[in-house]
Structure formats: structure tokens, C-alpha cells
């Protein structure tokens, strides 16, 4: 499997990862990578601030279109490139996206 690295700071050309628009740009690259079945390493180094609005658009929305196994197979977030606060936010967004999606699936089944 081909492996690539997405450096978030380079994609958004800023050390402020705060807007959902920038998050959507990251999302598009990740989604495209999954379709091409490449393993993408996501590098958050050099970011001064990361908001949940950015992360929802960049990562959270992936859970609406991809199952967990697919995400685990093709996307690896380099935890060492995140500060403690950023890491907590990434985990929060991922947990929340999974919960919200499963709520939706339950609603659909009912």
C-alpha cells in the first residue's frame, strides 16, 4: 500500500487550524486518499491553535461516509505531532462523531 504524509500546516498554509473551511480542505485530501486506498499519515506539527470546528470538518465528517475499519486502515494521525490540548480535541471530535453517527443509524433503524 502506498503511504503518504499530509502536513496540515502546509495544506492550510497557516499555523491556525481554526476554520471549518480549512478543515474541509483537509477532509477532501483524506477522502481522496481513502478512495485511492493509500495510507495517509496526518501530521499536525507546528500548529499554534486547533479548534473543534476545524477538526469536525477535517476528521469528524469522515465518520459520516466511512466505517471505522476503513478509517483505521487508511488514516493514521501522528499523535506525537499534537500538543496535549490538541490531542484531547482530536479524541473528543472522533468520539463525538462516532456517537452522533451511531445515533443516526439507530434513528434510521427505528
Amino acid at each position, binding site marked *: 500500500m502506498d503511504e503518504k504524509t499530509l502536513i496540515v500546516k502546509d495544506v492550510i498554509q*497557516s499555523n*491556525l487550524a*481554526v*476554520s*471549518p473551511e480549512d478543515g474541509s480542505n483537509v477532509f477532501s485530501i483524506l477522502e481522496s486518499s481513502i478512495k485511492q486506498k493509500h495510507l495517509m499519515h496526518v501530521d499536525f506539527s507546528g500548529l*499554534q*491553535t*486547533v*479548534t*473543534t*470546528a476545524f477538526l*469536525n*470538518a477535517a*476528521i*469528524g*465528517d469522515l*465518520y*459520516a461516509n466511512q466505517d*471505522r475499519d476503513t*478509517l*483505521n486502515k487508511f*488514516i*493514521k*494521525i*501522528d*499523535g*506525537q505531532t499534537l*500538543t*496535549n*490540548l490538541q*490531542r*484531547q*480535541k482530536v*479524541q*473528543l*471530535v*472522533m*468520539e*463525538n*462523531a462516532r*456517537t*452522533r*453517527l451511531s*445515533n*443516526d443509524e439507530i*434513528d434510521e433503524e427505528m
Partner: protein
Amino acid sequence: MNYHIVIPEKVDNLAPKIANLIRVLDIPSLDAGDSVHLDFSHTEMEARVYSSGMSDKIKEAFSKNGFLKSVGIPSETTDTYNTTIPIFNGYSQNEYAIKAYLDEFVFNNEHWPRSYNNSLFGIETINSAIYEFTRNVNEHSGSNRVFMCGQFYPRNNNLRFCIVDKGKSIPFNIRNLLPNLAALTDCDVIEWATGKGNSTKPDKVAGGVGLYSIKQSMINYGEVTILSNEGLWKQALLGGHRHIPLTSKFGGTIIHLNFFLDKIPSYMPSQSEDATINNDDIFF
């Protein structure tokens, strides 16, 4: 008869001129069915703001941070101790303007702890809370304008910071989008909005952690107060919540952050100190 009167671009001292115009038109002589259309679409309106009843203390604070001047009230008060963070009036989505403002007036203020210069943790903690709120304003209030100001309190080692929007209030917005919450008080609606995963967005759209993330990140580092419509919600330093119903309405939202600078570590806590459990294989 239809009258269409275009008001000029520049009109000083508007009220007496309009009164004179009405007199010249001799409105009483108009016949039934006549219409008079005063067209102000080309006119620059000059608003005048007057203040009254302001205590000296409030007047001094509003003068120091530039608020009075920004609304056209002359004021001259020097900030002798350089503790005031002046008014920011700009777009909530303009992160570069907000960054420049915070860098200049907060992180380069003489009262910003020098011990933080070797670490980004203090800056990140404060930036994070402020950007989360300004993005929240942009996404939910229907207004893209945000006002901010603050003050250092060197004796107590506090930084107090305020973020205001004049868009839709949190209770109004949530009740409008989620009628099942209509029976909640304004304080309870704000409490709901700060809950984990609570969002007005459809389930298939990721959201609902912005306010939750801020309140969690402020525990042990400061206090958060959210005032919106007729509700005031406050989170204390250790995370306890207090609800205060208000007797008057504020049609927007005021966020007050009180950072206890001596409680925010000057170093970046290491990953090993992270007590949260990584429960997803996506990390490596």
C-alpha cells in the same frame, strides 16, 4: 399623486431638516391616495451617541479600552499601568486579525507572564478558548461581527477577557431549531449547549463539542461565564456550574473568561500526563 423625494447623500442635523421638508410639502393638503416616498437609500446617516448615568469607574474603564471613542463619545483617559486590552471590533471569521490583536495586546502586554515565553501552553490555552468562541459566533449567531476586550489584573494574576456578539442569542437559536427544548429556561438551554455532543446540527454532521471543549479546557485554569438572552451560566474554577436568571434581556451573547494565570502551567504538559484514554486505532 405620488411624490418620490431622494434625500441627499450628506445631511447634517437631520431632524429639523426633515421637519422643514414635511412643512414645505404641506402634508395636510395632500389628498387621500397620495403617497410621499422619502428615499434615504443614498444618504449616509450620522448617528450620535450620548451616555448618561455612567459611574466614574465604568466611564474610566470604557475610556481606557477605547469603547467610548469607538461609539463617538470623546474621552481621554490614560492607561497608566498598561493593563487594558482595547476593544476589538471585527469579523469573527478573520482569524488573522484576531491573532494580530491577541499577539499585540495580550501576549505582548507587559503583564503577560514572562515565564510563559518559553512555552506555548499558556498561549494555546487562551487562544483555544477565544478561537472556539469566535468560530461558534460565526456558525450559530447569524452575525459575523465580534467585539472583544479585556484587562490584566496583576495583583490577582488574572486576565479577564470578554467576547460579545449581537446576533441571535443561544436560547433563541436553540429553541428555534430544537422545539423539544422550548420548555427549558434560558439558563438550562445554555447548560444544554455546553453539554458534550449537544448540537443543533443534524446527526450526520459532526459538531456539538465547541462549547464543551472550552468549558473542559478551562477547569482548574479559570472561570467561564456565558450570558445570553435572559440567562447567565457560570462555570467556576473547579468546574461547578451556577445558573442566574436575568430580569432583563440581552439580544446576543456575552462570554466572559477569567484566566487565573498563576494556575496555567508555564510548561507544556507531556503526553504521558494525558489522562484521557486513546480508544481509537487511528492514532499511532
